[in-house]
């Protein structure tokens, strides 16, 4: 085999190795950037699990996680979000009512009333939340 043939083969092997190396490094780089930009969203099964476990503060965590601050709510999960928001409002309603701050309590009462008026099959959860905060 001529030396120039060997040189060509060696160079081709180097090229193939570099292509693989680039694919691996590229994958890592893309993954790094994606992991930064990725937003974790809880799906319906997560909310349902929390609801079954009567873990309303977990639902609130999931709600914050999914909606953040912008309030863009997924309609499919609206009923679960309503329970989470009801729990949050009930949390604040109690502290202001206990302190006799009717004005602030009314703000949270309004949120609770609005949610109560539209809640469907999960009305039992709202009752459970009311009961729970009455006990604290």
């Amino acid at each position, binding site marked *: 085999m001529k030396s*120039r043939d060997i*040189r*060509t083969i060696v*160079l*081709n092997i*180097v*090229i193939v190795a*570099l*292509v693989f*190396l*680039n694919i691996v*490094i*590229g994958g*890592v*780089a893309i993954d*790094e*950037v994606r992991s*930064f*930009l990725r937003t974790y969203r809880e799906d319906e099964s997560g909310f349902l699990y929390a609801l079954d476990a009567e*873990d*309303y*503060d977990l639902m*609130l*965590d999931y709600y*914050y996680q999914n909606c*953040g*601050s*912008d309030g863009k709510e997924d309609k499919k999960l609206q009923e679960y979000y309503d329970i989470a928001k009801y729990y*949050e409002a009930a*949390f*604040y309603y*109690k*502290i*202001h009512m*206990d*302190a006799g*701050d009717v004005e*602030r309590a009314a703000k949270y009462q309004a949120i609770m009333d609005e949610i109560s008026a539209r809640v469907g099959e999960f009305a039992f959860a709202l009752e459970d939340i009311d009961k729970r905060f009455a006990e*604290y």
Partner: protein
Amino acid sequence: MKCEYCNGTLSFEEEYCPHCGQRNKHAQQHIKDMLHYQGEFETTKKDIHETTKEYSRNMVQLVMITVLVILAVVMIFVSANAYSFCFDYMDKKAERNVEKYTAVMDEYIKAEDFRRLYLFCEEKYISGYDEAYSHYSPVIRAATDYYYFCENLVWIMESQDMGYDSSVESMCNYLNNFYYCMDMSHFDYMENADRKENREALEVMELYIKRMLQSYCHFTEEELDGFKDLSDAKRTVLIEEKMGNEE
């Protein structure tokens, strides 16, 4: 040249004389030489062609290797600094949108919705240390502590599996950090941090925290008087005692 038989004029390449038809001996040698030289020429031409082709191929390979090595170095650099690049991008975005974002933050402060204020700042990478947001620094940092204080309090209320003791400890840490933010002297180095609006927002947050401690940890109003002025250790002990009693 002249034909050696008839002395007629004939060219060097003519194998036979056009006048007498005799064989031209010089032409035979000439043709033989020409064939030989042409063969050598063709061989040399082929060699040059092949060598050039080989060098071109190697050159292309070397260029490809160079490009791939540069690409690998760039990607390693990007990979190693991905977070830094993304943070810088988000930081610059937050700086560009300072008016828009502070308007939203004001809305949350006005609505006393400090948990969403924290979430908003978190999403937009607005830090209490950013120069563009230095005038909101105490509120941003206090909102962070407020958010996690509430989160831990709820965990304690609901007795989550995170561990009761660690939640109480964590809640106390966030509460102490919150009271640290209430001391504006800690923000002297931040431009315009000691603003009336910030003080008011912090007071509202403190009011909420006190009410949470009253409702959910069963502190009395008297017990919470001067809570802000207590040392971190004393506050922690008081809360742990209360929570211990609750257990």
